[in-house]
């Protein structure tokens, strides 16, 4: 009995920590304890008419398996696995199955469907006896998610590629249909290659929505064929632009990776730069002192009370919306400054002529511009003020980004709108690095402190919501406002932190932070292997010894 119990203890210890480090954690996972090698002639098979982006995803997967070369994050980096590997079976085949009756649409088509009709579920089965592994799904998008999980099973030691915890079976699907990342390309510009690398990283953690805050008051990098002068006069430079071909390239690259692109043209605020090409449409352009006209410099907002400006904005939004296949489109709507309009003679004149208040004029503006989007079959996405601060008529399908603080989700839900969590107190990646306004020492940033991955990971998406209200939560996203970011720190400020919301909204809330930490280390190293400059969360010494660097070490 003595021998048995110490053996039992050894077994228990050996299974803790789990060798697999999937991120996001599948919602349903059964694992064994055998090793499995990847055969040199390993191939992925899919019988069926296969769309091109699915074929590409298969060959990318085969590439990742061969090239990730990730060593296990344990002391010795996997050298202790070599004995077990001599007797391990080899896997030479992964078979993909589309369920009967399923459409063999492209991944892109599936990813660009309306949010709630995307089918990302899959079943993955990896036996331990060397017989073929398989992934079954009812859409190519589901197959892609399964392939992504599959790539995270593999490690390398001394040239051998192997999985550590087979057999593995998972039936997996996301808890929330919207799992996003927002990038602001207006405060500072990011080349297409940076956006693509970010899309690759997003895809690795099964994010499905790139929210592209493409323009703002500071610059207008988006080339719109009908409105070329906006970027000619408003981009930071003639090379800091996204051409229509760049946009197509980004949308296609995203789509092939299971990501839909939600483009945002923030209106009527955050539009100062439009004054460079269309001064007639902008009130208080670059007015100073900026702080009485805007939340940040430069001031300048669309003259929402003007008919011409309203039509201009509607045409602009429609032109941009036509460049993006997504069924959602963001018209923005945050941080409107009333003083800018109070002091704008042009706006006051319009209001006098029509007998409208500013809010009534805003209502007309919103109805008109949103209609332009809806006429194209798209659902508007707005920042929370459109629901919480203004008295405007919105289509009941309008989706609301909750950003000022997470508590506002309750009020938005009470008003019956679908919502996306984007709260600054949990998901703003830019907070905590000091104020960028001015040069005065020690001014805090408005959203201090830094939001750690642990903080966002422990967010409760349905806090204070009734069951009915909870149904309105579509998911959430991390956001990078780029006042203090550029290509030089994009990866390091985003990864691996943004992965915490990817798991939160895929696996669901309530995950254990200690267990997540060791998997997050693994993800961070895999991201590095794939060329994303994800940062370390702890000294490597700690990453190799799960739990040992906890405040109260869980191995003691």
């Amino acid at each position, binding site marked *: 009995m003595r021998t048995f119990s110490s053996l039992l203890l050894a077994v228990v210890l050996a299974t803790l920590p789990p060798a697999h480090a999937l991120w996001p954690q599948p919602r349903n996972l059964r694992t064994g304890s055998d090793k499995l090698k990847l055969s040199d002639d390993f191939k992925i098979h899919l019988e069926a008419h296969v769309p091109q982006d699915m074929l590409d995803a298969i060959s990318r997967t085969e590439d990742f398996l061969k090239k990730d070369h990730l060593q296990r994050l344990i002391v010795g980096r996997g050298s202790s696995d070599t004995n077990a590997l001599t007797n391990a079976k080899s896997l030479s085949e992964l078979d993909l199955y589309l369920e009967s009756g399923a459409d063999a649409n492209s991944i892109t088509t599936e990813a660009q469907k309306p949010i709630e009709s995307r089918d990302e579920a899959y079943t993955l089965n990896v036996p331990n006896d060397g017989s073929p592994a398989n992934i079954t799904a009812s859409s190519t998008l589901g197959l892609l998610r399964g392939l992504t999980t599959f790539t995270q099973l593999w490690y390398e030691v001394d040239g051998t590629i192997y999985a550590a915890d087979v057999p593995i079976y998972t039936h997996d699907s996301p808890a929330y249909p919207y799992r996003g990342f927002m990038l602001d390309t207006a405060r500072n510009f990011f080349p297409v290659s940076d956006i693509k690398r970010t899309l690759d990283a997003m895809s690795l953690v099964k994010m499905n929505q790139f929210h592209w805050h493409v323009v703002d008051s500071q610059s207008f990098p988006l080339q719109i064929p009908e409105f070329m002068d906006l970027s000619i006069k408003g981009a930071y430079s003639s090379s800091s632009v996204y051409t229509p071909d760049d946009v197509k390239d980004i949308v296609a690259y995203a789509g092939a990776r299971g990501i839909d692109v939600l483009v945002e043209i923030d209106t009527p605020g955050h539009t100062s730069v439009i004054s460079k090409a269309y001064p007639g449409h902008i009130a208080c352009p670059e007015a100073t002192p900026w702080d009485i006209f805007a939340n940040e410099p430069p001031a300048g907002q669309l003259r929402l009370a003007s008919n011409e400006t309203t039509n201009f904005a509607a045409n602009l939004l429609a032109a941009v919306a036509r460049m993006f296949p997504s069924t959602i489109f963001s018209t923005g709507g945050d941080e409107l400054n009333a003083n800018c309009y109070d002091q704008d003679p042009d706006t006051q004149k319009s209001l006098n002529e029509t007998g409208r208040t500013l809010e009534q004029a805003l209502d007309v503006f919103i109805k008109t511009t949103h209609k332009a989007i809806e006429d194209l079959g798209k659902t508007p996405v707005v920042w929370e003020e459109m629901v919480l601060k203004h008295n405007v008529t919105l289509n009941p399908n309008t989706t609301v980004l909750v950003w000022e603080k997470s508590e506002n989700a309750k009020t938005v839900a009470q008003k019956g709108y679908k919502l996306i969590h984007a709260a600054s107190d949990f998901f703003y990646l830019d907070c905590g690095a000091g104020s960028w306004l001015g040069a005065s020492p020690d001014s805090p940033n408005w959203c201090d402190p830094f939001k750690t991955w642990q903080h966002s990971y422990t967010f409760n998406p349905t806090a204070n919501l009734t069951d009915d209200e909870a149904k309105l939560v579509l998911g959430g996203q991390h956001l990078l406002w780029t006042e203090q970011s550029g290509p030089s720190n994009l990866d*390091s400020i985003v990864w691996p932190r943004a992965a915490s919301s990817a798991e939160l909204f895929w696996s669901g809330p309530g995950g254990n932070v200690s267990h997540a930490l060791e998997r997050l280390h693994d993800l961070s190293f895999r991201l590095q292997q794939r060329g994303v400059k994800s940062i370390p969360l702890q*000294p490597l010494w700690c990453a190799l010894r799960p739990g040992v660097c906890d405040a109260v070490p869980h191995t003691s």
Partner: protein
Amino acid sequence: MTQTSFPAFLLLFILLSTLTRVHALWPQPRSLQTGSEALKLSPTFDIIVSGNIHFLPLDLREAISRTKEQVKNDRLGRVVVGRGSSDQPLLFQAKQLDALYLSFGEHATMSSIADEARKPLESRDEAYLLSVPCDGSPATLVANSSLGAFRGLATFTQLWYNFNGTTYALHLPVDIVDSPSYPYRGFMLDTARHYFPVIDIKRMLDAMSWVKLNQLHWHAVDSQSFPLQVPRFMDLAHKGAYSPDEVYTPDDIADIVSYAGARGIDVLIEIDTPGHTSVISKARAEHIACPEFMPWRTFANEPPAGQLRFASPATTNFTASLLEAVATMFPSTLFSPGGDELNTNCYDQDKETQSILSSTGQNLEQALDRFVRTTHQAVIDLGKTPVVWEEMVLVHNVTLHPETIALTWISSDSVKAVAQKGHRIIHAAADFFYLDCGGGGWIAPDLAGNGYCDPFKTWQHAYSFDPLANLTTEEATLVLGGEHLLWTEQSSSANLDPIVWPRAAASAELYWTGPGGNTSDALSRLHDLSFRLQKRGVNAIPIQPLWCALRPGACDLPTTSST
């Protein structure tokens, strides 16, 4: 008379344009006179050594060629709206600069930049005079040492911008009389919590030299890993490095030291003792008390626990030999044996230590005194000055050589006490200069995510530090300078550049130009520096939207909001 008098509006225009920004030199020279003319750089521009110099050290010759490369290849557009397009009318009539004449003072003795940079702190001569006329006649750079000449060259490269292929400078003529306020201007890198390849360290050295930093403080090893290959102690790295690839070979070290030297930078190597040494237990188990003991919090400030058994004569001798072996690898006159965060509980619970203490009748502090004297003597015998963390002066009762320099780190408030004890000081305070703060705690699972030294230390905060606060005039003479520090619990190659640059430049200017600089004026120059660093391959981060960088002052908080 009427022809020479300026129309009033033109005068106003000139005033305004000189008010917004003159030059974007970083650090700001201590004496700078500027004019209002433009000057183009000739395509055949050359740097010519004049005077009776018969021998030019190789590293100075290389620095001269790098300078010529930089002025040609930086291709930095001016950080103003239009990126220099508005400068074109000025350039139309501008003269061309064909040459910079470099000469040395009468009493100059010619040795390499590296030799000058490695002199004792207070005897390094970094002064230079730089004049760039606007009439096309040669610019002149005069120094008393190759190191001073090198500093002048660094300044010269920062004068130049590019628009449409034309390299030009504005606000000529320029006359600069420059030398540093403080002799120690450093940057500390920890290569033990995470390993950094040699190429990263070299890139840091390049960036350091461009802002005239002169000291790399290399915290090479710590409890987590021992990447330093030390001859006669090869087992330490063999068993203590994170992997066989994550090591600094003796050749790597020689390479780093010479790369630094050629860039006017001395390397202060630190082997932290007797704490922060857990990893030595992998190779020399007998020398380490409480190795990797758990729960770590009762044995160390961070995991893993483990400290040198300093009460043991064998361990003391081992340490003295180790320090000596490392010290001989580095030509600097400074060497740091560390000395921070000693945990007494580790020794209280270490039977071996307790048995030695009882047999010798010493208490722990007495044993420490002996250890410190012996190990420091090994360093002093090599002609080197020990540099210690503040606890050696403030917390422990140990005999230090009076020349010993203290790094004040726990708080800037410790400076006064160290000065009162008469030791020279390097500012390295966590509350001003720790670059790792504010990124969330790394001890898990910390849900609030607070780090030990929150919040983030902004560049403005470090820039407005007063190195002489609360010090008497006499105590003030003990301040040698200061450094920014990067502890790398949450840093690696992936975020080295963005976490360090441009923030570390704040202390570079503080200790070169002296305190009291205006942060608004500094901001626009710091943007310029940040963009120039990017042009030279360092991933310095933006500190504002480009819109603000191009419009100095436009993103300041208006006075209306502070009232």
